[in-house]
Each structure stands twice: as structure tokens, then as C-alpha cells.
């Protein structure tokens, strides 16, 4: 069991010091958004660099820091802490020039090990994604998780949340990296999603519990997402989007960068399209990500069967309606695809809804339901 004991006292103290100084760092970085180099500094240098007039207070925080109390609080909150000197720490993070001192984690902690050993892909994108981007992100999340690839994202609205949902559709391989303490469900709107990931997947952060999200913590979080994964896929991003910071970090430390093509006439995909122009891998679907991760043809399908399970003994009629819904058809198109009369389609939809296999998506159309 990985728990609060997996961080050495010095690392734990430094991580808590960063948490303590987080508001000061925010003041210092008001103009420059990226905490370049700061997080690599030792305690004394860090205090000298950011604390300013508060330096005595920060020093006394270091002196009065009670390691046993900190561990006790972590244990009570069921939060694990691993530092880079322990085996459970994901090795991939050490490629960063400023790796997190400690990684706090909540959820299925055994997943920390798989983060270190198994293939990981990061899927990020715009908070306000187009329906197309959300569809693609969810599909990527689902397909990657089904192929036993752990899906990392940032729990933001839009594309991030869609990628998480996709991963949860097909299993538990969902990892959220937060820009605040792991016990802070931010943003509020994603609270139910946070709970699901904390229960079935894994929520991690380098910030100690209770630290609120600040401007600088988002790019700092993005460097962790970039380092954890073999490839970072940007689904849809405007110029200036935070997800482009993730892709920059990824290429800085030699990770693959991929982007999903967007409409060239749309302003919503200018950033991700520029990545493609600059040589990012073109991601048309799950297979393209798998090819980048494992080399072309390097991935062999899991023989465990399809990740999207269907109940046994489903009538053939319901099967074909379910197929049509998964293909994204509307009700009339389902009738065309299956050759069933409109009323039989509605009755099948009613049956499937009662069985919990489909649900209304928005006002009109039906969508497949996974949970």
C-alpha cells in the first residue's frame, strides 16, 4: 500500500514550503506565467527568491514544520505522498528540470505504479470545446483506456473532462492532474467527475492538500501532465490556450506531441492546427495515438474483449439500434439504418433507456450511456 510514508522528510517539507509560499509565488509571477526554474530550487534559495520581506516567517515555517503531523493529516485524508527518492514515484517525471518534490495522490494508489511502468497518454484541449472536439476527446479517452493506455488530463471543463469521461467509459484508467491540492475539487462544475476519478482512477498534484488553484499552478501542472505521458495530444486549442503550454513542455523534454486536425476556417482550432503545421503528429483517432506510442503496428489488441460491454441476451433488434446510436445517428437515421418503422425505433429506445444503456443527450438525441 502506497501511503503518506512514501516521501522522505526533507522532500515533504519542501513540498509543504512550496504550498506555504504559493501566494507569494503568484505575486512574483504576475507577469510571467511559467514558474521557470523556481520549483527546482532548494528551500533556502526558494525563500530567498520569492519570500522577500516574508523570509523570516517562511524560515520559521520550515523550522516549525512537524513531519509527523503532516503525515497524520495526510493519512486521515487518505492521501498518499511519494517523493522522487522512493520507488513508487513515476520515473518519467525525472526528465523534467524541475520535477515535483512530492506527488500527492488520492484514489486507486496502485495506479501510481502503472503510471511509472505502463503506457500513458495525455489528452488536453480547450475549456470551451466544439461538439466535434468533445466527441473526439471522449472517443480518444475511451479507445485509449480500452487499449490499456492510461489517460491523463487536467480535469478542466470541455475537452479535459470529455477525455476523462471517455477513459471512465472503458474502465478505470483515468488520471487527473490538478493545479491545486488533491482534495480541492476544481472546477466546481466537474465535482461529480472529480468524485468518480478519485474513486475509480487517480487524482494527483504536486501541491499539498488545501492549496487553492493559482495562476502559476496551471502551467506548473501542465509540465507534470507532459512528463507523465509518452505522448501529449492537443484535441482543440486556440492560440494562447493553456494546452499549448503542455505541448511545449512535452517537446522540450523530448516527448511526442500530437494534435487533432480542426477546421482551418474556425478560430477554435488555430493553436492545434499550428502544432500540426510545425510537425506534430496528426491524430485522426485512437489508432494514430497507439502508433505513436508503440510504433506502427506495435500495439496488439487486448484479447480480453471489447471494453464497451453489452448485456447478454440482448435482442438482435436492440443490438442494431444500439449500433446506430453508437454511430451517432438521430432517430430518423436509426430507422433508415435498421429498416425499422419509427414507432419500433422509439419503443427500442424506451427499452434501452429503461435498461440504462442509453440516455437522452441534450434535448433531443440519444447517446450511449456508460457507468
Amino acid at each position, binding site marked *: 500500500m502506497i501511503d503518506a510514508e512514501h516521501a522522505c522528510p526533507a522532500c515533504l517539507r519542501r513540498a509543504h514550503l512550496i504550498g506555504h509560499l504559493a501566494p507569494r509565488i503568484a505575486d512574483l509571477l504576475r507577469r510571467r506565467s511559467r514558474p521557470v526554474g523556481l520549483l527546482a530550487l532548494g528551500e533556502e534559495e526558494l525563500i530567498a527568491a520569492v519570500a522577500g520581506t516574508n523570509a523570516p516567517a517562511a524560515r520559521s515555517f520550515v523550522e516549525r514544520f512537524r513531519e509527523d503531523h503532516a503525515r497524520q493529516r495526510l493519512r486521515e485524508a487518505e492521501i498518499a505522498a511519494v517523493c522522487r527518492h522512493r520507488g513508487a514515484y513515476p520515473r518519467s517525471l525525472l526528465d523534467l528540470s524541475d520535477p515535483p518534490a512530492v506527488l500527492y495522490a488520492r484514489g486507486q494508489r496502485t495506479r501510481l505504479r502503472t503510471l511509472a511502468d505502463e503506457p500513458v497518454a495525455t489528452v488536453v484541449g480547450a475549456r470551451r470545446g466544439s461538439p466535434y472536439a468533445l466527441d473526439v476527446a471522449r472517443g480518444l479517452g475511451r479507445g485509449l483506456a480500452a487499449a490499456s493506455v492510461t489517460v491523463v488530463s487536467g480535469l478542466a471543463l470541455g475537452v479535459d473532462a470529455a477525455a476523462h469521461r471517455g477513459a471512465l467509459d472503458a474502465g478505470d484508467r483515468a488520471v487527473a492532474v490538478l493545479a491545486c491540492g488533491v482534495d480541492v475539487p476544481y472546477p466546481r462544475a466537474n465535482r461529480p467527475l472529480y468524485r468518480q476519478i478519485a474513486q475509480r482512477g487517480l487524482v494527483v498534484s504536486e501541491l499539498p492538500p488545501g492549496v487553492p488553484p493559482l495562476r502559476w499552478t496551471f502551467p506548473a501542472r501542465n509540465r507534470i501532465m507532459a512528463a507523465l505521458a509518452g505522448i501529449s495530444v492537443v484535441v482543440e486549442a486556440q492560440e494562447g490556450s493553456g494546452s499549448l503550454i503542455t505541448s511545449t513542455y512535452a517537446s522540450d523534454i523530448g516527448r511526442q506531441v500530437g494534435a487533432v486536425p480542426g477546421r482551418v476556417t474556425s478560430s*477554435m482550432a488555430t493553436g492545434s492546427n499550428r502544432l500540426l503545421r510545425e510537425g506534430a503528429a496528426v491524430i485522426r483517432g485512437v489508432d494514430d495515438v497507439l502508433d505513436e506510442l508503440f510504433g506502427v503496428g506495435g500495439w496488439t489488441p487486448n484479447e480480453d474483449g471489447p471494453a464497451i460491454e453489452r448485456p447478454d441476451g440482448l435482442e438482435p433488434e436492440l443490438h442494431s439500434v444500439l449500433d446506430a446510436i453508437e454511430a451517432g445517428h438521430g432517430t430518423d437515421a436509426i430507422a433508415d439504418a435498421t429498416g425499422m418503422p419509427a414507432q419500433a425505433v422509439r419503443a427500442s429506445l424506451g427499452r434501452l433507456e429503461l435498461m440504462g444503456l442509453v440516455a437522452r443527450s441534450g434535448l433531443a438525441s440519444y447517446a450511449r450511456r456508460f457507468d
Partner: protein
Amino acid sequence: MLASVATFAIEGVDSVEVAVEVDARRGLPAFTIVGLPGAAVREARERVRAAILNSGLDFPLKRLSANLAPADLRKSGPSFDLALAVAVLAASGQVPACELSSYAVCGELSLSGALRPVRGALALALGARRAGRRRLILPAENASEAALVEGIDVLGVERLELIAALLRGEWRPETPRAGPAVEPSHEPALDLSEVRGQTDAKRALEIAAAGGHHLLMVGPPGVGKTMLARRVAGILPPPSFEEALEITRVHSVAGLSHGELASERPFRSPHHTISTSGLVGGGSTPRPGEITLAHRGVLFLDELAEFSRGALEALRQPLEVGRIEVTRGQRSLSFPAQAMLIGACNTCPCARPPDDCTCNDVDRARYARRLSAPLLDRIDLVCELGRAPAPGGRAIADASLDVARRVSAAREMQRARLEGTGSLSNAEMSARLTQLHAPPDAHGRRRLDHGRGDAALTGRGQDRALRVARTIADLEGHERVEAAHVEEAIGFRLASIGQTAAA
């Protein structure tokens, strides 16, 4: 000398008796009206004086005091003119006062002495009969409408001097012809077969028409939502005599009637900028709103999400109970509002087909939130319209006449089943009636009880689904509600919105 004449004032869609008393005394010539008269009633003095003089009668040079009783009811509108004139004539001895007690008199006067039509003739006649008056004098143009009420002698008169002759027993008008003026045409002007494809929406429209259920059509613009809604009139059965009376009464009070019995169900389609009181009724003198004008017919709200939140929320009560209570000042009025709601809205605010949509998920969620869950909960059928198919191909769609035949057969089954309960269609059934008349068979019961997740039905949800299932069974001529009917009803129902797969 004192004279009293009975007249009736419109109150909501009913009428209440008002006694017009005129007292003529010696004194300085004057004409005063008391008893909470509105502006139009105070002006009646000039119309009455001129009309009497221009009719070749005498306007008494006396001190005239008129009282409108009950004095605490605010009187508005010009329909008191005629009663005031007749009372003045009786008070001055030009018509026999003793004859007047069996009459009720309503009408507006022009200066020439001609009678002008009034609003709400049917409601006036019903009120007069209830008050025990045997004869009702009305402007000739209102007579045929008022004559729909049995048990009261309606006398349609064109000029004031003829009333004097009538009361003196020297003249009698022709008995007005009652009943439907024109045979309703059996050829609907707009036909369902003109709308290509959209089989799902057509099916939903047929079920909605057959059971009087509320319907919401969702789809991109230009695929036929409005076309379909406008064709619902062609598949609804013509109103029964009682329903036609209710429709005529409401429309007559609102000044929309042409003096004849309504032969068609109303179809109202107010613009989305309508105010709350315009939609559900209101105003300082409460007037019926669009939902009441659509009574026994269809209220079509295009661009449902664009209506003001307040107006839509106010629809909740009438959609549920078929009546709307309007309270203004010290008065509270109840208007009938048994209308079938047909709503139409787009899937997203940019209103483009799905492939060209530029909305992000925040925009879409905001758009869907404009329709509150309690409102959507009252809409039993939510159907989806896809892109219109290319011309040609596809089998010929059902014509309106075929659909109308099925709908009217289903309505006939409901009418026979619900005889004597006060409900006319499945949508109007109470929870008790639903349990009594729409019990599902064992398979259907199991479907209802074993919904999973969001599809799990509450007691109220079960009732609503059963009412629609009952209609679907009626359309197929089945006495018993079967599993397939329940499933289709649930397929059309919008389960808890927000808890959807994409949320």
C-alpha cells in the same frame, strides 16, 4: 319615476348580472351615472342622449340619476349603453316598465340609434339564462351566437326605436338561426404528406393529437418543425358541440368570434416576445391570454427557448390542470386553458445543422437551461427532427386524412371510456383515472417498475408515461396497454434533463 333594466357584464369568460336603475325627477336637467362606471360607461350619457333623440323618441328634460348595481363591481366597456337607454325610456314612460322584468338587455349604441355588436354574446346569454331571464335583447349581429344557448328567447334588434316598438308589443324580430353556420370542410388546407421524411416527428404528432398530449419538437431550422405544427389542425377531429360552445365563448369574450359557432379548433402561435400576461391572461381588467384562446385547440410556441422565463414558468399550472387562475387587485378569475402545447426549438443557439455548428458545450448547456426542468416535465413527447431527406425516393407519407381518421377513432374510444368523468382525452385523466383506465399488462408493468438509473420512474413519471401509452394503445385499437406501448411512451419521454449521457 323609477325604472330598472337587467344587463350583464363580462367577468372573465362568464357574465354577471348588473341592474341599471334610472330615476327621473323634476329639477335642473342633468344625467349622472354612479356605481363605479369606467370611462366608456361615463361617456355613455352622450351616446344615449343622441341615440334617443335621433330615433325619434324624447329625451326627458329632467334630473336623471342612473345607478349600476352591484356598486362595488367595476363596470367597463360600452355594452351598458342600451340598458341605460331603455331604462331612460321606461323612466320617462315611453315604454311600459312592467314588461321589463323578464328581459335582459345588452348592446352598444351609435349616435344614430343603431345598435353595435358587443363582445361575449354567448357568455352574456349563458349568464342571462342562469339568472332566470326569459328574453335577451341584443344587437342583431350578436343574435345568432347568443341563440346557441337553449332555454332563452334571443331577440336581435338593429335600431333603438325597434326596441321601443318591441317592448310596446308592436313588433317582433325574426328568430335568429342558431347552430354551425358553415359545414367544416373535410379537406384540410395543409396536408401532412407535404412534409418529407420526419417519420419520428409525424408519429409523435399523431400520438399528441390523439391524446391531447403536449409535444416538443427539437431540430435544426428548416427541417419542417413549423410546417408540421401548422398541419396539426388537419388531423385533429372537429370539436364536438359542447367543445365548440366553449371555444366560441372564449373567443367571443376576446372579441375574436364572427358571431358563429366555431367549426374548427383554435391554433394560436404567439411570437416569442409575448409578455407573461399576454400568454396566460391578465391586465387590470383580466382578459384571457393565448393559452385560454387556444382552449380545446393548439398553442404553438415556436422558438420555445426564446420565450421569457417568466412567461414559460407561468404556463406550468395551466399545462398541468387545464385552467389558469388570474388574480388582479381584489378579483380572482379562472380561465379555461385546456390546450395542447406544441413547442419547437433548435438543438443549439447557433441554429445550424450539426456539422456546421459553432457552439461550444457551454453555449449549448446554457441554451438547454432556458427550458426549466419542471416545464419539460410536463411535456410528454419530445421528438427529434433530422435533416430533411432529398426530394424523391422514400415511400409516400400518410396523408392528413388517413392520420385524422386514426386520431378520431382513438379520440372516440377515449370519449366513450371517459364518459361522465369530465375528462375528454387521455391527457386530461387524473392519477386515479389513469390507474383505472390504463393499467398495463404484466410485461408493461415490469417495464415501468424496472427502469435503471435515470430511467427509473417516479410515481408521477409512471402516470405520465401510462397516459401516453394509453393513447398509443388507442391508436392501435387495443383495449389493453401492452409492453410495446409503454416502451414507445418512455422513448418519447424526456427523462431527467441534465443527467444525460453527454453531461
